[in-house]
């Protein structure tokens, strides 16, 4: 068994430098690596390219890195209700590559799976297709999308073991499994870290081979963006 455990978030993010490309798991505020994001703010790393479906909200998640102007470029599918993101994008301070959510997920998966590019129907005939090769399959036009990789992929899981195997909870899974595959160094922060052998191999979502560093997060606020009840 190869031990992937690091002592803390500082050790987990050792080597993250200015100008790097990071992938960060999560959908909205659900399943985001909040301990690592807080540490990125502490480190003050600048000019980052961040690949993440969203950019948090103004005062939580990746939104904090935006407020601190640590992000040079975002690759995302949805800006949503993040005012600072929208402001920086419209003013041109922030470079933004908006891509369809399914293409984003598949591009991360492809990056981790050794597939350099693939054709998808999503975005054909729209701005997203500009400059991309178009080819017809079964009478339907598709556009060529390339794989995405990152210097660091930072993911969040529910449970993990010392071998780096991960289990996610409910819809906090989202982009985490694909991003875990696509990092040169993949960092996993987990709510509960257990010795190898304690997780049922049948139930593991991300095999430890994709994970280089794992640690138990100190604190998970798990903020809810749209609390909705019956």
């Amino acid at each position, binding site marked *: 068994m190869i031990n992937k455990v690091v002592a803390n978030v500082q050790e987990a993010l050792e080597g993250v430098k200015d100008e790097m490309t990071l992938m960060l798991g999560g*959908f*909205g*505020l*659900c*399943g985001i690596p909040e301990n690592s994001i807080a540490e990125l703010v502490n480190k003050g790393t600048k000019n980052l390219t961040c690949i993440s*479906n969203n950019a948090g909200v103004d005062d939580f998640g990746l939104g904090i890195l935006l407020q601190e102007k640590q992000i040079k470029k975002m690759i*995302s*599918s*949805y*800006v*949503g209700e993040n005012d600072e993101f*929208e402001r920086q*994008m*419209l003013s041109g301070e922030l470079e933004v590559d*908006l*891509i*369809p*959510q*399914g*293409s*984003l*997920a*598949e591009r*991360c*998966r492809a990056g981790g799976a050794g597939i350099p590019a693939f054709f*998808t*129907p*999503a*975005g*054909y*005939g*729209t*701005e*997203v297709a500009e400059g991309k090769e178009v080819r017809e399959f079964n009478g339907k036009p598709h556009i060529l999308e390339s794989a995405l990789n990152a210097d660091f992929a930072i993911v969040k899981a*529910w449970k993990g073991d010392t071998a780096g195997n991960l289990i*996610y*909870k*409910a*819809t*906090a*899974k*989202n*982009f*985490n*499994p*694909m991003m875990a595959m696509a990092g040169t160094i993949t960092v996993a922060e987990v709510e509960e870290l257990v010795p190898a052998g304690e997780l049922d191999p049948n139930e593991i*979502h991300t095999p430890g081979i994709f994970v280089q560093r794992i640690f138990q997060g100190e604190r998970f606020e*798990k*903020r*809810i*963006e*749209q*609390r*909705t*009840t*019956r």
Partner: protein
Amino acid sequence: MLDKIGIAKRIAQELQDNTYVNLGIGIPTLVANYIPEGISVEFQSENGILGMGPFPFDGEEDADLINAGKQTITALDGAVYFDSATSFAMIRGQHVQLTVLGAMEVSENGDIANWKIPGRMVKGMGGAMDLVASAENIIVAMMHTNKKGESKILKQCSLPLTGVGCVKKIVTNLAVLEVMPQGGFKLLERAPGVSVEDIQKATEGSLIVDGEVPEMDI
């Protein structure tokens, strides 16, 4: 004229038995509240759940369990969670039979625009481009006109597109329209108390009126 709930109720009549359905943010989300009796459908939310249930009771919210609108939800018996790549495999692979989503504009050849107003508003496309590029059946739920009173049912979209030639049906506060394969909007039904002339006035694209147009039954 219908309100948002009326639009949702009318769209609910389109649900087919034993199908998987993706509901977008806004009016489409309301459709889940009006499933006709005897119809069995499962709702997919593209962030990674099939078998989505109603909103939780107060105090039972789970931050790890949300829909694509980031609202807290519940999971029904038989529900399943999956990653985003699997989710869009369901969508692109046409395993999800019906997509209901909102729009800013629809054109008479079935183009849809709903993600960006250049220089003013950028929400991002989220999963909408994948959904409209692949779904077998796409129904748009929206108001017939925008806040300025301008038609959203157009000859050609003026805003950046989300997808081309994909919308099959539109349910608005005024009417049910079918996008014809050869182009144009066929008027299928009128909202209660709305005349064909009212609909004509609010429609910039070619409206095809064929004989007597029935009033919606909701």
